[in-house]
């Protein structure tokens, strides 16, 4: 027996997720260009872990394995998590974070479509709370430090925690622009002097600003192909822009400008790829505006006044909690029950 409608648009969850993965590629390519191929190692590691955990959980939950492995959603979680943590983080951290994201944050909530929290961000939160030291192993961009590891040396460090004799970790890694800013402001250095440091590149961070531009490009592709709507990126970036703008205008010596906040940290990744996860974000357009504006506010507050270097992950998780309530209070009026009619 079959039911109407008998025709459907040829689209699938798997194709949607694949397009999101493709949209991440410009950012990843620029990442490799500026920071070397270590990120590809963590992406591969996270992908394999995600697929393995997904298969195991599906088997334990007595669900069909192949259709769900092919839906690309686990891969997306893996990529987003890998892009959120330092490429030089030890291999087991990538594995633990990804396995936690897939097994606990996704499957214990009921699997695809049922997770209340963004799994990648749950994985990130677990890692940054459990292993804060290792979460600072950010690679310095090419040309920023005197000695750079070769790719085999990077592998040696990721998998065996071994560095070449002459090097210390501090000489090879570097705090992120957001982190550096925070530290130097604590030392009462003036903003202008801090931003003149070579790490800040053109406007938000040497290398990292270009990666963020890559994510922005991919995000525009997602918008153009109607995989995401404009509401979440616009409200998130808009709120960040307005808040950073106000503080910067009032006290430019202590608060970085809007452009810095847009292109530093995970703003672009969050605006287009993380906050827009359909499963854990609101389903109404007004709800999306509220949700993303809230996330923008929290991100700014955590970055500027909080203890963590970046705020996108926690802002996302905190706003995830509010989603059911936001959706309930932003139900659109149905046909014929709207106020204004001719």
């Amino acid at each position, binding site marked *: *027996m*079959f*039911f*109407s*409608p*008998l*025709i*459907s*648009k040829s*689209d*699938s*969850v798997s*194709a*949607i997720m694949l397009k999101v993965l493709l949209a991440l590629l410009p950012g990843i390519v620029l990442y490799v260009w500026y920071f070397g191929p270590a990120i590809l190692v963590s992406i591969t590691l996270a992908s394999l872990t995600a697929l393995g955990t997904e298969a195991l959980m599906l088997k334990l939950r007595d669900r069909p394995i192949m*259709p769900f492995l092919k*839906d690309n*959603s686990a891969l997306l979680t893996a990529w987003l998590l890998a892009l959120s943590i330092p490429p030089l983080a030890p291999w087991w951290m990538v594995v633990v974070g990804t396995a936690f994201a897939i097994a606990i944050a996704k499957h214990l909530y009921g*699997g*695809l*479509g*049922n997770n209340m929290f963004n799994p990648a961000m749950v994985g990130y939160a677990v890692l940054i709370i459990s292993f804060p030291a290792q979460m600072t192993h950010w690679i310095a961009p090419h040309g920023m430090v005197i000695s750079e590891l070769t790719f085999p040396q990077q592998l040696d460090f990721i998998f065996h925690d071994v560095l070449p004799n002459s090097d210390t970790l501090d000489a090879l890694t570097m705090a992120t622009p957001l982190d550096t800013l925070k530290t130097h402001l604590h030392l009462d250095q003036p903003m202008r002097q801090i931003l003149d440091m070579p790490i800040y590149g053109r406007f938000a961070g040497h290398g990292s600003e270009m990666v963020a531009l890559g994510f922005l490009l991919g995000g525009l592709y997602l918008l153009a192909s109607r995989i995401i709507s404009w509401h979440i990126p616009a409200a998130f970036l808009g709120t960040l822009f307005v808040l950073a703008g106000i503080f910067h205008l009032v006290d430019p010596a202590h608060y970085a400008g809007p452009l810095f906040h847009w292109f530093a940290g995970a703003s672009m990744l969050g605006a287009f790829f993380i906050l827009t996860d*359909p*499963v854990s974000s609101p*389903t*109404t357009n007004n709800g999306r505006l509220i949700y993303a504006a809230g996330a923008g506010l929290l991100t700014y507050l955590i970055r500027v006044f909080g203890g963590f270097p970046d705020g996108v992950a926690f802002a996302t998780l905190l706003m995830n909690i509010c989603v059911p309530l936001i*959706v309930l209070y932003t*139900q*659109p*009026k*149905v*046909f*014929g*029950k*709207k106020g204004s*009619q*001719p």
Partner: protein
Amino acid sequence: MPVGNDNMRKLYHFHGGIHPPSNKTQSTRATIARAPLPAKLVIPLHQHAGETAKPVARVGERVLKGQLIGMPDGIVSSAVHASTSGTITAIDMQLIAHPSGLPNLCATLIPDGEEEWVPRKAIDYRDHSPAGLQHLLRMAGVVGLGGAAFPSDLKLSLDRHKITTLVLNGAECEPYITCDDMLMRERAAEIVQGAEMLRFMLDAEEVLIGIEDNKPEAIASMRAAVAAGGHRRMEVIAVPTVYPGGGAKQLIRVLTGIEVAAGVRSTDKGVQCFNVATAYTVHRAFAHGEPLLSRIVTITGNVLHPRNYEVLIGTPIAELVALGGALPDTDSYIMGGPMMGFPLPSVQVPLVKATNCIIASSKKIFPPPPPVMPCIRCTRCADVCPADLQPQDLFWFAQSREFGRAQAFNLFDCIECGACSYVCPSHIPLVQYYRFAKSEIHAREHDKQLADKARVRHDYREQRIEREKQEKADKLAAREKAAQAARLAGAQPLTAQQQAEQAELETSRAHIRELAQSAVEHADEGTTK
């Protein structure tokens, strides 16, 4: 070739909608042909919304073309006629074109090939009252030919509503279906005259004829007919091609800006809407005295010769399929379009007034849907919903059997157009979930009504018993009072002996009353248990 917005009028927009491949050109290459007289007609007595018509022909009787064989039974009902002359050979339960696949009462008619008509009486509608014309339509079996088959006379009885706008629906938004398109191309003048008759009955000011802009020939033909007939305040309007733009509420919205909410009649807002083919049938009924005996049907899909035919009501679908030349890999037949149609339980079922299109289906044309995946709340369904619903939430509630919440989230505003299912990347048969939830809610409401009725009956019975008891007691008391009064009136002083007797009598009476009282109470206990 879209016509573009060359209308003088401002058009309105409704939320959502989809653009499925139209697949209409296949069946519009040839003109409407008349299907040959079949060897047997099976005419269902329930072809319309409402009550089944009462059979008024006898088995074995010779009937003439256009003779009444089913009398409207009840307010919401319509007449059924013999589609040709011949002999009624059976009136019994047969399989009909209904999604349920259940049989219904049908008259079997063996045509004699004479096509001998009952006397037909053409009338000038302007000489009649709207009420009289409504009755004529009811007896001519005129029902809405857009799909719902609602008796047209009822849509014309307005009780005190003032109608400003008559909307004629020529949108025909479902893919594959072209019967209205071809009718408008070939018989525009009759449609327009029918519209004039409907306007007269409604006393409506303006007539707006909405046609989707993917039918330029129909639009041109209708515009020419309106101009040639010199019809004032009647306008043919090209509307954007978007499914489900042919839904009555959607078309009314596009043409007038008015949104008619679920459970509200468009007449409350001064608008009434008829399908173009219905207008054509109204014209046949008044100007030619012909009841509804045939309609235009599209045969398309997996056939050699897709085309539109004028077919007698009661013709087995198999005859139409044979005319189209169904290809060998055809595996089923759809009545209606691919968005809202349903597979026929058998190709032998008869064609009814609501049959606008038959699509021969094969795995190639309508491939089986891919496996269902979980909902990822992407809200593509909400983006295309013409009723501004949140289909992903309704699906969730229906799936978890939270019917109360489904209702609170406006489940009954869903028009089951299927746009949500069409775009769902998880291939969830959403409309099926909504139909399921609706039928469960209806069943529960039905059960509740029965329980309420039973409770009311029970309460009434209790009251009655109590009242009767009270009346009996009152009567007894009155009688005793009267007896006492009579005794006093006797005025004779009683002897001590008599007084003693009297007292004894009183005590025993009280005792009997007590016994009776306790018996009644006991009985009460019995009923309440």
